Protein backbone atom coordinates (compact mmCIF):
# COMPACT_ATOMS: atom_id res chain seq x y z
CA UNK A 1 0.00 0.00 0.00
CA UNK A 2 1.12 3.56 -0.47
CA UNK A 3 0.66 6.16 2.22
CA UNK A 4 0.94 9.92 2.03
CA UNK A 5 3.97 11.06 4.01
CA UNK A 6 4.90 14.61 4.90
CA UNK A 7 2.88 17.79 4.83
CA UNK A 8 1.15 19.61 1.99
CA UNK A 9 4.16 18.97 -0.25
CA UNK A 10 4.71 15.35 0.69
CA UNK A 11 4.66 12.23 -1.45
CA UNK A 12 3.28 8.69 -1.47
CA UNK A 13 5.54 6.01 -0.01
CA UNK A 14 5.10 2.29 -0.41
CA UNK A 15 4.77 -0.25 2.42
CA UNK A 16 4.14 -3.97 2.42
CA UNK A 17 1.56 -5.17 4.89
CA UNK A 18 0.19 -8.69 5.43
CA UNK A 19 -3.16 -9.35 3.80
CA UNK A 20 -5.51 -10.81 6.40
CA UNK A 21 -9.04 -11.88 6.30
CA UNK A 22 -11.28 -9.35 7.96
CA UNK A 23 -9.16 -6.26 8.32
CA UNK A 24 -10.15 -2.66 7.98
CA UNK A 25 -8.20 0.09 6.27
CA UNK A 26 -7.58 1.56 9.72
CA UNK A 27 -6.09 -1.80 10.80
CA UNK A 28 -3.47 -1.75 8.05
CA UNK A 29 -2.58 1.89 8.72
CA UNK A 30 -2.15 0.94 12.38
CA UNK A 31 0.01 -2.02 11.32
CA UNK A 32 2.38 0.33 9.52
CA UNK A 33 2.61 2.60 12.55
CA UNK A 34 3.12 -0.24 15.02
CA UNK A 35 5.52 -2.37 12.99
CA UNK A 36 7.11 -0.42 10.16
CA UNK A 37 7.34 3.27 10.98
CA UNK A 38 6.29 4.68 14.36
CA UNK A 39 6.52 8.24 13.04
CA UNK A 40 3.40 7.80 10.91
CA UNK A 41 0.66 10.24 12.00
CA UNK A 42 -3.02 9.48 11.65
CA UNK A 43 -6.19 9.92 13.68
CA UNK A 44 -8.73 7.56 15.13
CA UNK A 45 -10.59 7.10 18.39
CA UNK A 46 -13.63 4.84 18.55
CA UNK A 47 -12.88 2.30 15.77
CA UNK A 48 -16.59 1.59 15.46
CA UNK A 49 -17.87 4.39 13.24
CA UNK A 50 -19.04 6.77 15.92
CA UNK A 51 -16.44 9.47 16.46
CA UNK A 52 -15.79 10.51 12.87
CA UNK A 53 -12.05 11.02 13.34
CA UNK A 54 -10.62 8.33 11.05
CA UNK A 55 -11.67 9.61 7.61
CA UNK A 56 -8.99 9.44 4.89
CA UNK A 57 -8.82 9.32 1.14
CA UNK A 58 -8.76 5.64 0.20
CA UNK A 59 -8.01 4.90 -3.43
CA UNK A 60 -9.13 8.39 -4.37
CA UNK A 61 -12.36 8.38 -2.41
CA UNK A 62 -13.00 9.80 1.07
CA UNK A 63 -14.03 7.03 3.47
CA UNK A 64 -14.31 6.20 7.17
CA UNK A 65 -11.37 3.86 7.48
CA UNK A 66 -12.47 2.00 10.62
CA UNK A 67 -15.59 0.74 8.88
CA UNK A 68 -14.06 0.10 5.47
CA UNK A 69 -12.87 -3.43 4.84
CA UNK A 70 -9.67 -3.77 2.86
CA UNK A 71 -11.18 -6.61 0.83
CA UNK A 72 -13.89 -4.26 -0.42
CA UNK A 73 -11.67 -1.45 -1.60
CA UNK A 74 -8.24 -2.85 -2.49
CA UNK A 75 -7.61 -3.03 -6.20
CA UNK A 76 -5.27 -5.88 -7.14
CA UNK A 77 -4.10 -6.11 -3.54
CA UNK A 78 -3.14 -2.44 -3.51
CA UNK A 79 -4.32 0.52 -1.51
CA UNK A 80 -3.46 4.18 -1.72
CA UNK A 81 -4.26 6.14 1.41
CA UNK A 82 -3.95 9.89 1.74
CA UNK A 83 -5.27 12.67 3.96
CA UNK A 84 -8.75 14.11 3.33
CA UNK A 85 -8.98 16.67 0.55
CA UNK A 86 -10.15 20.28 0.94
CA UNK A 87 -8.43 20.58 4.33
CA UNK A 88 -4.85 21.65 5.09
CA UNK A 89 -2.54 18.68 5.67
CA UNK A 90 -0.73 18.76 9.01
CA UNK A 91 1.40 15.65 8.53
CA UNK A 92 0.92 12.30 6.82
CA UNK A 93 -2.73 11.30 7.12
CA UNK A 94 -3.83 14.01 9.55
CA UNK A 95 -5.54 17.15 8.34
CA UNK A 96 -6.21 20.38 10.14
CA UNK A 97 -9.94 20.18 10.82
CA UNK A 98 -10.20 23.74 12.11
CA UNK A 99 -11.71 25.26 8.94
CA UNK A 100 -14.35 22.52 8.99
CA UNK A 101 -15.39 23.18 12.58
CA UNK A 102 -15.09 26.94 12.28
CA UNK A 103 -17.71 26.73 9.56
CA UNK A 104 -20.01 24.84 11.90
CA UNK A 105 -19.73 27.85 14.20
CA UNK A 106 -20.31 30.29 11.35
CA UNK A 107 -23.44 28.36 10.37
CA UNK A 108 -24.57 28.75 14.01
CA UNK A 109 -24.35 25.03 14.58
CA UNK A 110 -24.66 25.35 18.37
CA UNK A 111 -28.03 24.90 20.02
CA UNK A 112 -29.39 28.11 21.57
CA UNK A 113 -31.86 27.29 24.35
CA UNK A 114 -35.09 29.24 24.43
CA UNK A 115 -35.99 28.13 27.95
CA UNK A 116 -34.26 27.60 31.26
CA UNK A 117 -33.82 24.54 33.43
CA UNK A 118 -36.60 25.87 35.63
CA UNK A 119 -39.12 25.47 32.81
CA UNK A 120 -41.14 22.39 32.19
CA UNK A 121 -39.57 19.93 29.73
CA UNK A 122 -41.01 20.62 26.31
CA UNK A 123 -43.02 17.84 24.73
CA UNK A 124 -42.02 17.12 21.16
CA UNK A 125 -44.03 14.75 19.08
CA UNK A 126 -41.66 12.39 17.19
CA UNK A 127 -44.13 12.35 14.31
CA UNK A 128 -44.30 16.12 13.84
CA UNK A 129 -42.94 17.18 10.41
CA UNK A 130 -40.23 19.39 11.93
CA UNK A 131 -38.95 16.59 14.17
CA UNK A 132 -38.99 14.11 11.29
CA UNK A 133 -36.88 16.55 9.23
CA UNK A 134 -34.46 17.10 12.12
CA UNK A 135 -34.16 13.37 12.87
CA UNK A 136 -33.38 12.57 9.25
CA UNK A 137 -30.27 14.75 9.41
CA UNK A 138 -29.19 14.42 13.04
CA UNK A 139 -26.84 11.42 12.96
CA UNK A 140 -23.82 13.30 11.61
CA UNK A 141 -20.52 12.14 13.12
CA UNK A 142 -18.50 15.18 11.90
CA UNK A 143 -16.21 13.04 9.78
CA UNK A 144 -15.80 15.69 7.02
CA UNK A 145 -16.12 13.09 4.27
CA UNK A 146 -18.82 15.18 2.60
CA UNK A 147 -16.66 18.28 2.99
CA UNK A 148 -13.75 16.52 1.29
CA UNK A 149 -15.99 15.30 -1.53
CA UNK A 150 -17.73 18.59 -2.29
CA UNK A 151 -16.57 20.42 -5.41
CA UNK A 152 -18.11 23.67 -4.21
CA UNK A 153 -15.89 23.57 -1.11
CA UNK A 154 -12.96 23.01 -3.45
CA UNK A 155 -13.82 26.04 -5.59
CA UNK A 156 -15.03 28.42 -2.93
CA UNK A 157 -13.07 28.49 0.30
CA UNK A 158 -15.83 30.53 1.96
CA UNK A 159 -18.47 27.88 1.35
CA UNK A 160 -19.74 26.52 4.67
CA UNK A 161 -19.97 23.01 3.27
CA UNK A 162 -22.51 20.20 3.50
CA UNK A 163 -22.00 19.14 7.13
CA UNK A 164 -22.28 22.60 8.72
CA UNK A 165 -25.38 23.40 6.65
CA UNK A 166 -26.89 20.01 7.43
CA UNK A 167 -26.36 20.77 11.12
CA UNK A 168 -28.00 24.19 10.72
CA UNK A 169 -31.01 22.47 9.12
CA UNK A 170 -31.47 20.18 12.13
CA UNK A 171 -31.51 23.20 14.44
CA UNK A 172 -33.87 25.18 12.21
CA UNK A 173 -36.26 22.29 12.68
CA UNK A 174 -35.73 22.08 16.42
CA UNK A 175 -38.66 23.90 18.05
CA UNK A 176 -36.71 24.29 21.31
CA UNK A 177 -34.02 26.38 19.65
CA UNK A 178 -34.25 30.14 20.01
CA UNK A 179 -31.97 31.43 17.25
CA UNK A 180 -33.72 30.50 14.02
CA UNK A 181 -33.63 33.88 12.37
CA UNK A 182 -29.94 34.51 13.20
CA UNK A 183 -29.16 31.05 11.85
CA UNK A 184 -31.16 31.58 8.68
CA UNK A 185 -29.35 34.86 8.20
CA UNK A 186 -25.98 33.16 8.67
CA UNK A 187 -26.69 30.39 6.19
CA UNK A 188 -28.26 32.73 3.62
CA UNK A 189 -25.14 34.90 3.48
CA UNK A 190 -22.53 34.56 0.75
CA UNK A 191 -20.85 31.16 1.01
CA UNK A 192 -24.02 29.74 2.58
CA UNK A 193 -26.69 27.36 1.36
CA UNK A 194 -27.30 29.22 -1.89
CA UNK A 195 -23.76 28.42 -3.05
CA UNK A 196 -24.57 24.69 -3.20
CA UNK A 197 -24.95 23.30 -6.71
CA UNK A 198 -26.92 20.21 -5.65
CA UNK A 199 -24.24 17.88 -7.00
CA UNK A 200 -25.06 15.34 -4.31
CA UNK A 201 -21.50 14.09 -3.93
CA UNK A 202 -22.01 14.68 -0.21
CA UNK A 203 -25.05 12.45 -0.11
CA UNK A 204 -23.37 9.81 -2.21
CA UNK A 205 -20.38 9.46 0.13
CA UNK A 206 -21.78 10.20 3.59
CA UNK A 207 -21.06 7.06 5.63
CA UNK A 208 -24.11 7.73 7.79
CA UNK A 209 -26.29 7.80 4.68
CA UNK A 210 -27.41 11.32 5.46
CA UNK A 211 -28.60 13.60 2.69
CA UNK A 212 -27.01 17.04 3.13
CA UNK A 213 -28.26 18.03 -0.33
CA UNK A 214 -31.85 17.67 0.88
CA UNK A 215 -31.06 19.61 4.07
CA UNK A 216 -29.45 22.40 2.06
CA UNK A 217 -32.41 22.48 -0.34
CA UNK A 218 -34.60 22.84 2.75
CA UNK A 219 -32.48 25.79 3.90
CA UNK A 220 -32.71 27.36 0.46
CA UNK A 221 -36.50 27.31 0.65
CA UNK A 222 -36.66 28.41 4.26
CA UNK A 223 -34.28 31.34 3.75
CA UNK A 224 -36.13 32.40 0.61
CA UNK A 225 -39.49 32.51 2.42
CA UNK A 226 -37.95 34.22 5.43
CA UNK A 227 -36.52 36.86 3.09
CA UNK A 228 -39.81 37.36 1.25
CA UNK A 229 -41.63 37.74 4.55
CA UNK A 230 -39.03 40.26 5.69
CA UNK A 231 -37.86 38.06 8.58
CA UNK A 232 -34.21 38.10 7.60
Amino acid at each position, binding site marked *: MSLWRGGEKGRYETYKVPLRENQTVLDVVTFVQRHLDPTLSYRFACRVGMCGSCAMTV*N*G*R*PRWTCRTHVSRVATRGQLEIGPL*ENLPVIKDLTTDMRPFFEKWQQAKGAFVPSQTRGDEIERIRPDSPARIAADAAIECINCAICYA*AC*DTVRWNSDYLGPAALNRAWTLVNDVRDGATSERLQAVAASGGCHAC*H*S*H*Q*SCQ*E*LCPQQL*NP*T*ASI*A*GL*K*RRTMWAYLKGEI
Partner: protein
Amino acid sequence: MTLRHLRHRHSALWLAALAHRLSGLALAVFLPLHFLTLGLAIRGEAPLESFLRWSDQPLVKLAESALIFLLMLHMFGGLRLLVIENLSWRDGQKQAATIVAGVSAAIAFFLLARMF
Protein backbone atom coordinates in the same frame (compact mmCIF):
# COMPACT_ATOMS: atom_id res chain seq x y z
CA MET B 1 -7.63 18.54 -10.78
CA THR B 2 -5.73 15.36 -11.64
CA LEU B 3 -6.77 11.85 -12.59
CA ARG B 4 -6.60 10.93 -8.92
CA HIS B 5 -9.43 13.36 -8.22
CA LEU B 6 -11.64 11.79 -10.82
CA ARG B 7 -11.74 8.52 -8.98
CA HIS B 8 -14.81 9.27 -6.93
CA ARG B 9 -16.23 11.65 -9.48
CA HIS B 10 -17.99 9.43 -11.94
CA SER B 11 -21.45 8.89 -10.53
CA ALA B 12 -24.45 9.67 -12.72
CA LEU B 13 -25.15 12.79 -10.69
CA TRP B 14 -21.63 14.13 -10.88
CA LEU B 15 -21.67 13.57 -14.63
CA ALA B 16 -25.07 15.31 -14.80
CA ALA B 17 -23.57 18.34 -13.04
CA LEU B 18 -20.61 18.32 -15.42
CA ALA B 19 -22.89 18.02 -18.45
CA HIS B 20 -25.02 20.88 -17.12
CA ARG B 21 -21.97 23.10 -16.76
CA LEU B 22 -20.49 22.25 -20.15
CA SER B 23 -23.79 22.53 -22.02
CA GLY B 24 -24.31 25.92 -20.39
CA LEU B 25 -20.90 27.08 -21.56
CA ALA B 26 -21.48 25.72 -25.06
CA LEU B 27 -24.82 27.51 -25.26
CA ALA B 28 -23.24 30.73 -24.07
CA VAL B 29 -20.78 30.48 -26.94
CA PHE B 30 -23.51 29.57 -29.39
CA LEU B 31 -25.99 32.33 -28.55
CA PRO B 32 -23.97 35.25 -30.01
CA LEU B 33 -23.54 33.26 -33.23
CA HIS B 34 -27.26 32.65 -33.29
CA PHE B 35 -28.00 36.34 -32.95
CA LEU B 36 -25.43 37.09 -35.63
CA THR B 37 -27.40 34.86 -37.99
CA LEU B 38 -30.63 36.58 -37.12
CA GLY B 39 -28.80 39.86 -37.75
CA LEU B 40 -28.06 38.65 -41.27
CA ALA B 41 -31.79 38.47 -41.93
CA ILE B 42 -32.14 42.14 -41.05
CA ARG B 43 -29.32 43.10 -43.41
CA GLY B 44 -31.11 41.64 -46.41
CA GLU B 45 -31.92 38.38 -48.03
CA ALA B 46 -28.69 37.59 -49.86
CA PRO B 47 -26.37 37.06 -46.86
CA LEU B 48 -29.03 35.08 -45.04
CA GLU B 49 -29.70 33.02 -48.14
CA SER B 50 -26.05 32.10 -48.52
CA PHE B 51 -25.85 31.27 -44.81
CA LEU B 52 -28.90 29.04 -45.04
CA ARG B 53 -27.36 27.25 -48.01
CA TRP B 54 -24.19 26.73 -45.99
CA SER B 55 -26.22 25.36 -43.09
CA ASP B 56 -27.79 22.79 -45.39
CA GLN B 57 -24.65 20.64 -45.31
CA PRO B 58 -24.92 17.33 -43.43
CA LEU B 59 -22.10 18.15 -41.04
CA VAL B 60 -23.72 21.44 -40.09
CA LYS B 61 -27.03 19.65 -39.57
CA LEU B 62 -25.30 17.20 -37.29
CA ALA B 63 -23.79 20.05 -35.34
CA GLU B 64 -27.22 21.67 -35.11
CA SER B 65 -28.79 18.59 -33.60
CA ALA B 66 -25.89 18.37 -31.15
CA LEU B 67 -26.76 21.92 -30.12
CA ILE B 68 -30.38 20.96 -29.67
CA PHE B 69 -29.23 18.07 -27.50
CA LEU B 70 -27.23 20.46 -25.34
CA LEU B 71 -30.13 22.88 -25.12
CA MET B 72 -32.54 20.15 -24.03
CA LEU B 73 -29.99 18.73 -21.60
CA HIS B 74 -29.52 22.13 -20.05
CA MET B 75 -33.23 22.87 -19.91
CA PHE B 76 -34.44 19.56 -18.48
CA GLY B 77 -31.39 19.31 -16.21
CA GLY B 78 -32.18 22.80 -14.93
CA LEU B 79 -35.79 21.78 -14.30
CA ARG B 80 -34.57 18.79 -12.29
CA LEU B 81 -32.48 21.12 -10.11
CA LEU B 82 -35.40 23.52 -9.69
CA VAL B 83 -37.54 20.64 -8.48
CA ILE B 84 -34.85 19.57 -5.98
CA GLU B 85 -34.45 23.06 -4.64
CA ASN B 86 -38.04 24.26 -4.59
CA LEU B 87 -40.17 21.23 -3.82
CA SER B 88 -39.79 18.68 -1.08
CA TRP B 89 -37.10 16.06 -1.57
CA ARG B 90 -37.68 13.11 -3.84
CA ASP B 91 -35.36 10.14 -4.21
CA GLY B 92 -34.36 8.63 -7.52
CA GLN B 93 -32.29 11.60 -8.73
CA LYS B 94 -29.91 9.30 -10.62
CA GLN B 95 -32.80 7.87 -12.58
CA ALA B 96 -34.17 11.37 -13.13
CA ALA B 97 -30.79 12.53 -14.50
CA THR B 98 -30.63 9.50 -16.80
CA ILE B 99 -34.15 10.20 -18.07
CA VAL B 100 -33.17 13.83 -18.72
CA ALA B 101 -30.24 12.67 -20.87
CA GLY B 102 -32.38 10.06 -22.66
CA VAL B 103 -35.25 12.42 -23.47
CA SER B 104 -32.82 15.11 -24.67
CA ALA B 105 -31.06 12.62 -26.95
CA ALA B 106 -34.41 11.36 -28.29
CA ILE B 107 -35.59 14.89 -29.14
CA ALA B 108 -32.29 15.77 -30.81
CA PHE B 109 -32.32 12.53 -32.77
CA PHE B 110 -35.93 13.06 -33.86
CA LEU B 111 -35.11 16.53 -35.18
CA LEU B 112 -31.98 15.24 -36.90
CA ALA B 113 -34.03 12.54 -38.63
CA ARG B 114 -36.48 15.19 -39.80
CA MET B 115 -33.71 17.40 -41.21
CA PHE B 116 -32.61 14.74 -43.68
